[in-house]
């Protein structure tokens, strides 16, 4: 059949610089580069996904990947993208799959909010000279606190966890990412005194040493869940939805279920791991309450239970129900949040921006007087420390990051995780690719990133005259909107710049 799809990228090889060492050919799992019999190199560009592995490894910087310049006749309605998608579906008859979060040009509200700073009337604080607190405690907080005559707290404090930075690593299962990638995050979480999340796929035994810094996930497929697993985690997270694919389950193809994945997930080797769209035992808030309390019962009421939902239209009401169902932490994931594989149409069209969902949920829980009963954690594309500061000012207790952590480990957002051929050793189970990710190096890079962000958070807090992240939480007066409509400002609960 005649191929209508042209390559997306061109591989430009500067012959004056290329020394024909062949590193590009040996590193490309997509088999773009090839060493010819005469030792010269050629490229089959159709297969290129622009992951930049060859570019980074080339010792003479002889390679660059450029857009393949081939334009269809301009049309604001029938864009190149929409036509290419039709060509693809006409050729295969399948649904379109993609990876990572929603890439469409919807508004990014983080970029439409500005932070305050102290001038004259209240002094700003220099975090290099004065103590600055970014430690965060997650979990249910009591409605009131009582003391005895010696000033000791007599109120029973519900189980909580303390993290040194308001940043955790979100759920990415062993299967969707490699064990080395998980190990890097676990090592980083330990070093930073925060948490990584096992995702739905159980905990591999190599991660047991990091159990004190683990969040264990219970999702609709219940893979790898047993009593010891629950006991190993410090937080138990029930995953209802994921920002990149609200309303959709998961599917780990059988070819990624090797012996290690099979052992950890407790499923036969080579079998597809299908997580249903709903939990088949949860059809109401009351059902959710049963699962929350089953998990609490199983672990002796010692650990906070989190419930993760995708940010959707009625998030505020749903979150209120989750709090009343007995959860200690509500996690919300926005549509920019990543995924190893997701139907393109879902990714690009379902869900709402996390900023709006966060503001709406925080406000609703305050209005109902139950905000103290949970901690609010948000996920779904935190790109830098300013996003975190804005999220906390909007009402979040902490944030989850995943894409940013993967980028720190080498991910170049080529968004082809679903192929399982990740050249950076992240979203793959192929031994020859997994070993490219050395946890010793990568955990260090992730730690560096979070340290850098923590410093920046402290700088921004100091500038606002605040010396503790707790004083920023829900402090929306520190935010001003820019270029936003009345309605958007109303939902975000912030004033416009200049007001």
């Amino acid at each position, binding site marked *: 059949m005649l191929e209508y799809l042209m390559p997306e990228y061109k591989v430009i090889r500067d012959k*004056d610089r290329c020394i024909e060492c062949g590193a590009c050919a040996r590193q490309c799992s997509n088999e773009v580069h090839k060493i010819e019999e005469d030792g010269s190199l050629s490229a089959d560009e159709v297969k290129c996904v622009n992951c930049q592995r060859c570019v980074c490894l080339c*010792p003479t910087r002889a390679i660059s990947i450029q857009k393949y310049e081939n334009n269809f006749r301009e049309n604001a309605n029938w864009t190149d993208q929409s036509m290419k998608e039709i060509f693809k579906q006409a050729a295969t008859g399948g649904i379109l799959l993609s990876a990572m979060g929603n890439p469409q040009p919807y508004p990014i509200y983080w970029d439409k909010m500005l932070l305050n700073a102290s001038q004259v009337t209240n002094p700003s604080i220099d975090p290099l000279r004065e103590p600055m607190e970014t430690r965060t405690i997650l979990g249910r907080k009591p409605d009131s606190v009582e003391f005895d005559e010696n000033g000791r707290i007599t109120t029973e404090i519900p189980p909580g966890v303390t993290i040194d930075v308001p940043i955790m690593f979100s759920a990415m299962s062993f299967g969707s990412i490699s064990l080395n990638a998980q190990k890097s995050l676990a090592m980083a979480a330990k070093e930073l005194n925060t948490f990584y999340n096992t995702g739905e796929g159980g905990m591999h035994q190599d991660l047991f040493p990091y159990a004190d810094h683990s969040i264990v996930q219970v999702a609709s497929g219940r893979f790898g869940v047993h009593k010891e697993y629950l006991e190993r985690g410090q937080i138990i997270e029930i995953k209802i939805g994921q920002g990149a694919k609200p309303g959709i389950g998961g599917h780990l193809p059988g070819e990624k279920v090797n012996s290690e994945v099979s052992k950890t997930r407790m499923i036969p080797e080579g079998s597809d791991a299908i997580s249903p769209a709903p939990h088949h035992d949860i059809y109401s808030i009351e059902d959710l309450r049963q699962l929350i309390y089953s998990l609490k019962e199983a672990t002796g009421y010692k650990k906070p239970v989190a419930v993760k939902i995708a940010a959707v239209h009625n998030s505020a009401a749903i979150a209120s129900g989750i709090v009343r169902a007995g959860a200690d932490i509500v996690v919300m994931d926005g549509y920019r949040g990543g995924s190893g594989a997701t139907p393109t149409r879902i990714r690009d069209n379902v869900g709402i921006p996390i900023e709006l969902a966060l503001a709406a949920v925080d406000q609703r829980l305050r209005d109902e007087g139950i905000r103290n009963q949970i901690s609010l954690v948000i996920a779904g594309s935190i790109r830098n420390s300013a996003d975190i500061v804005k999220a906390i000012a909007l009402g979040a207790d902490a944030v989850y990051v995943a894409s940013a952590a993967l980028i720190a480990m080498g991910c170049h957002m080529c968004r082809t995780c679903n192929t399982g051929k990740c050249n950076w050793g992240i979203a793959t189970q192929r031994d020859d690719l997994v*070993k490219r990710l050395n946890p010793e190096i990568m955990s260090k890079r992730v730690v560096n990133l979070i340290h850098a962000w923590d410093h920046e958070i402290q700088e921004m807090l100091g500038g606002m005259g605040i010396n503790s992240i707790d004083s920023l939480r829900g402090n929306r007066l520190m935010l001003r909107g820019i270029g936003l409509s009345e309605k958007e400002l109303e939902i975000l609960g912030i004033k416009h710049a200049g007001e």
Partner: protein
Amino acid sequence: MKRVYAVEKLCLNCKLCEVYCKTAHSKSKNVIKAYKYETPVPESRIFVEGDNTASLAFSCRHCEHPACVEACITGAMVKDPETGIVTNVKERCIGCMTCLLVCPYGAIRPGHIAYKCDLCQGETTPACVANCPNHALVYIEGGSEK
């Protein structure tokens, strides 16, 4: 003494160690010039064997009692009593390759003369180790036990 040790489970088979070894032993110390314009073409002294599934970089072990030094018929192969580095003095080497035959590690490569690792002659970190993208080469004391 400090030696270069290869970690098999981390080796990517990218062979950048070879590229940087060659460059470190070139006149220009520039990758492109070393490969494209220098004569004689500089030789690499570290060699990656295997494929993407399993690979390993081989280089001189700088043995305690080097067979190559004992076997060398011209006295070109010498072990520095202080640093322990085994070097082939190129002015004396006649390229008979006796050293190559006796080396138990296959760490010597033939050419006009015998080429072998000299630990970059006093550099704090040899070029192969400094440029390994995955830390699959380490330069440490007593690495064989680790």
